[in-house]
């Protein structure tokens, strides 16, 4: 009994320390599969695109996210309160225009899940002043550099999203001089007999 109890608590301690909670997702996104096995980078800016093409923003670094929301609140004259900023930092992916942000952040966290997001607006001009996604990405990169890391941008997009919607997101990035980014995919096996298959056999 004592031995089993010891093992149980050892495991418990391990999982408690090793765990990192799955972030709440505002939408279910089914990513396409690829043979690529590059891990998602640390401190990434995550842009989620749902099948309808709505874009959500998240930043995988609490400190930088905090700096980001302070900048956004000041520059866009949102006058967010301390509690609202904290709600943003602790919240999951976020997809609303600036003018609806304040109202959303007042909702208690448990009810945020039922909130119907409209997505971060992207317009065709692709400049940071009017294209809100471009502004978010630029501001987040700036906050990341202040914090001491260079954030990489990851796009998590649903397989069934129409290409023009994806293109708008990619164009927003390239217009902001971000030419290198990551696309989230799920892993699939390398097909036999192809060049990549030969390569993987050589290295192993």
């Amino acid at each position, binding site marked *: 009994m004592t031995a089993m109890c010891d093992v149980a608590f050892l495991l418990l301690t391990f999982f408690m320390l090793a765990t990192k909670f799955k972030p709440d997702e505002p939408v279910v996104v089914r990513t396409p599969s690829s043979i690529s096995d590059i*891990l998602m980078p640390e401190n990434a800016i995550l842009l989620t695109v749902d099948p309808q093409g709505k874009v959500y923003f998240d930043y995988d670094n609490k400190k930088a996210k905090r700096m980001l929301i302070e900048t956004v609140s000041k520059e866009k004259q949102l006058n967010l309160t301390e509690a609202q900023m904290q709600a943003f930092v602790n919240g999951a992916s976020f997809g609303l225009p600036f003018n609806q942000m304040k109202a959303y952040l007042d909702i208690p966290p448990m009810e945020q899940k039922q909130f119907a997001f409209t997505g971060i607006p992207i317009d065709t001009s692709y400049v940071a002043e009017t294209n809100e996604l471009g502004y978010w990405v630029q501001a987040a990169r700036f906050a990341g550099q202040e914090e001491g890391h260079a954030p990489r941008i990851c796009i998590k997009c649903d397989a069934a999203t129409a290409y023009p919607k994806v293109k708008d997101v990619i164009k927003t990035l390239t217009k902001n*001089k971000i030419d290198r980014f990551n696309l989230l*995919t799920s892993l699939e096996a390398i097909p036999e007999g192809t060049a990549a298959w030969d390569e993987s056999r050589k290295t192993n």
Partner: protein
Amino acid sequence: MAEIAESGGGGKKGGKKGKKLSTRIDLTPMVDLGFLLITFFIFTTTMSKPKTMEINMPSEEKTDKPNEVKDYTAMTVLLSKEHRVYYYLGMANDPMNPPDVKVTYFQAKNGIRDAIIDLKKSVYAERNNGAAGHKADDEPVILIKADTTSQYDDLVNILDEMQVNGINIYALVDISEVDREFIKLTEQANTGN
């Protein structure tokens, strides 16, 4: 820790001590709770990070000298509706001589993969033949143009094909009206048959 206070003090002096009580406590509920928490943490934990694919887009800034793609190394892949893939060899710069556009799908046999493998083979065979402009370090170049009717799935699939077939030079570029025309003509030709 789990001491059980013995009755005494005001008890009989010098008399026999009270019956010693067992200091063992039942651990079962604690162990139950322990395992419950373990299960909880196992289910909520994210041990593996999601996998990603890196992509480099051509720079928006105009460079002085545009990349010259040699005609014999080039292949253009057009992504269209219903996961259809149209492709043709060469740059199709000559309007008088339209390329032979073929249609296929993402499939293991006779799909776009075989077309890419064929291109690679022909480039490797031709680059050493000493023809004008052919250099020994020429690599196949693939231009990916996705039409508005395609889905994100198609884009990732074609990028994956580049990796599967070891194509190092490829670019994601905007589709042109000429390419749309090619798709339309091929579609008409296929339904006409």
